[in-house]
């Protein structure tokens, strides 16, 4: 998955209909809330269980890479350059004689952190703009929507290449370049989150509980924060889960093009981009990081799918 913008167009998350419909279909004895209803439903889905298991394993890999390998991911020894997989190194050695298994394990952390941060920023910016546009309507909505259109109109890969190649000379260090990649991906993707939030907020604004709150004299901030936000969050969170996988794939694509992360940062994208010139002679250099990447993206997309179906009353 290389283009997170496509998500909004395909709109799997946008199909989530209004949450209150779900609340009415609660259990027989006492009405369950939408969240606990969804949770009840989720626990029995094999898709959810499989993806959660995968994600937990990946999170452990990211948090404690030292548990799984004792090799140093950056220790190179040219004597063992491009040695195929063996008992010592399960995934073989790369061009500089570094242990591919250790690098794959350590790469999990960067890839997941980049995905998490990019998703957080995207959702924060998009949800704030979207709920403001949906709540106030009128010229605020018109202006914010046009701003979102501007960013939405830029093709993702192309926009990211332009932004990254402009700024990457001026930021230094591993942390700087990682921040830049995260911010670039969020800057180009927030319109999708905004559109989802906006349509949820427009639907919520017409609901009786919002009118009641306004009629009782609640301030706009209180109406948004206490009444609208909890009811509009579900579709955005579903989008966020799928987008998380998309961002991990996007980071790999950008690194692959040579403008994302780079050495000494260890990430799957960096490994794949280093492997691409040797793919004909040493395909395992590409295969292992690519497989980890695909499994991670798959896990998050499956989780998003399962959550979406659980929150969607039409699917029951």
């Amino acid at each position, binding site marked *: *998955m*290389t*283009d997170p*913008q*496509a998500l909004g*167009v*395909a709109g*799997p998350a946008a*199909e989530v209909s209004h949450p209150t419909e779900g609340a009415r279909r609660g259990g027989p004895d006492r009405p369950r809330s939408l969240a606990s209803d969804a949770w009840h439903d989720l626990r029995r889905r094999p898709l959810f269980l499989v993806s959660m298991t995968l994600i937990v394993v990946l999170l452990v890999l990211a948090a404690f890479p030292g548990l799984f390998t004792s090799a140093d991911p950056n220790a190179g020894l040219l004597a063992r350059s491009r040695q195929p997989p063996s008992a010592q190194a399960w995934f073989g050695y790369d061009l500089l004689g570094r242990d591919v298994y250790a690098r794959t394990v350590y790469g999990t952390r960067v890839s997941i952190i980049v995905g998490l941060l990019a998703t957080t920023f995207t959702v924060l910016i998009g949800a704030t703009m979207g709920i403001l546009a949906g709540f106030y309507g009128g010229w605020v909505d018109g202006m914010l929507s*046009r*701003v979102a*259109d*501007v*960013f939405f*109109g*830029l*093709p*993702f*890969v*192309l*926009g990211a*290449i*332009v*932004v990254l*190649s*402009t*700024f990457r*000379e*001026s930021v230094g260090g591993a942390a700087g370049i990682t921040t830049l990649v995260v911010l670039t991906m969020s800057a180009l993707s927030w319109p999708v989150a905004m559109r989802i939030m906006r349509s949820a907020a427009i639907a919520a604004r017409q609901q009786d509980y919002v009118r009641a709150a306004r009629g009782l004299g609640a301030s706009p901030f209180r109406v948004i924060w206490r009444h609208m936000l909890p009811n509009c969050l579900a579709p955005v969170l579903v989008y966020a889960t799928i987008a998380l*996988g998309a961002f991990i*794939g996007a980071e*790999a*694509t950008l690194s*692959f*093009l040579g403008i994302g992360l780079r050495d000494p940062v260890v990430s799957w994208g960096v490994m*794949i981009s280093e492997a*691409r010139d040797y*793919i*004909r002679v040493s*395909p395992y250099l*590409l295969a292992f990081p*690519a497989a980890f*990447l*695909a*499994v991670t*993206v*798959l896990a998050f*997309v*499956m989780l998003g*799918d399962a959550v979406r179906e659980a929150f969607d009353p*039409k699917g029951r």
Partner: protein
Amino acid sequence: MGRYVLRRMLQLVPVFIGATFLIYVLVWALPGDPFAAKCGDRPCPDAYITAMRERFNLDDSVFVQYGKYLLGLLQGDFGETFSGIQVSELIANAYPVTLKLALVALVIEAVIGLTAGVVTGLRPGGYLDNLVLVSTLFLIAIPVFVTGFVLQVTLGLRWGIIDPTVSAQADFSELIVPGFVLGSLSMAYVTRLARTSISENRRSDYVRTAVAKGLRPRRVVGVHLLRNSAIPVITFLGVDLGALMGGAIVTEGIFNIRGIGGLVYRSILTKEGATVTGVVVLLVIVYLLMNLLVDVLYAVLDPRIRYD
């Protein structure tokens, strides 16, 4: 309808200006000397730099620069590169190839995606449905460049079925595999969209009526069901054409296709600002117009939707 189109066109104007201005500023107005390595190992002579800065309006403020660029653009002038080649000429050479690639990708994803979506949507929960669902998940999860490399190495190098790279003419037959790679992600979306909308519409009243009238199943599905279920798919395909062209960089790089993706990538590396802005502006125009076209098509396809 006419008023709606007009209003949408007017809304496009600020979006177009905003997006092109953003790109222009990113490419031109940021620090970094575009003439740093233009004269080999020596620094460029002052006279050259003065002349070039004059020619590319680099001494004006960024707003004036952008205004001049936009004025030229409205007259069909995309500017020229530092070596004096017309950007429009470069684009005219590269654009047809990318357009061809995007169209091939679009056809492949529409045909395969719709077929798979219709077949699974009619029989949800079956073996085939699960198989297709799992394969769409895999298509979504595997990055395009991995699909590209794997197909290139296996089909092109190991088995020798296709040429690993595409020739300069870029015939349609050569573009099938690259088109498949480019369209693979969207194919998964098309399949899922078609499946959802077929399985939702399958229970609707007009389908029941059509069956009750005694129409053959082929006609019910092919005419009544498909026409109504195709609307979200067509919306997606229309918007996707713009996205495919913008996203073709990776595919073009792998298969060595000489399209605008490669052009813009090379221009970014050599800091040819005029080419970068030209290509991105063109893609933004295509993207915005496709969006508009899709919205208008929406009303044509589904008479229940009325604007104004």
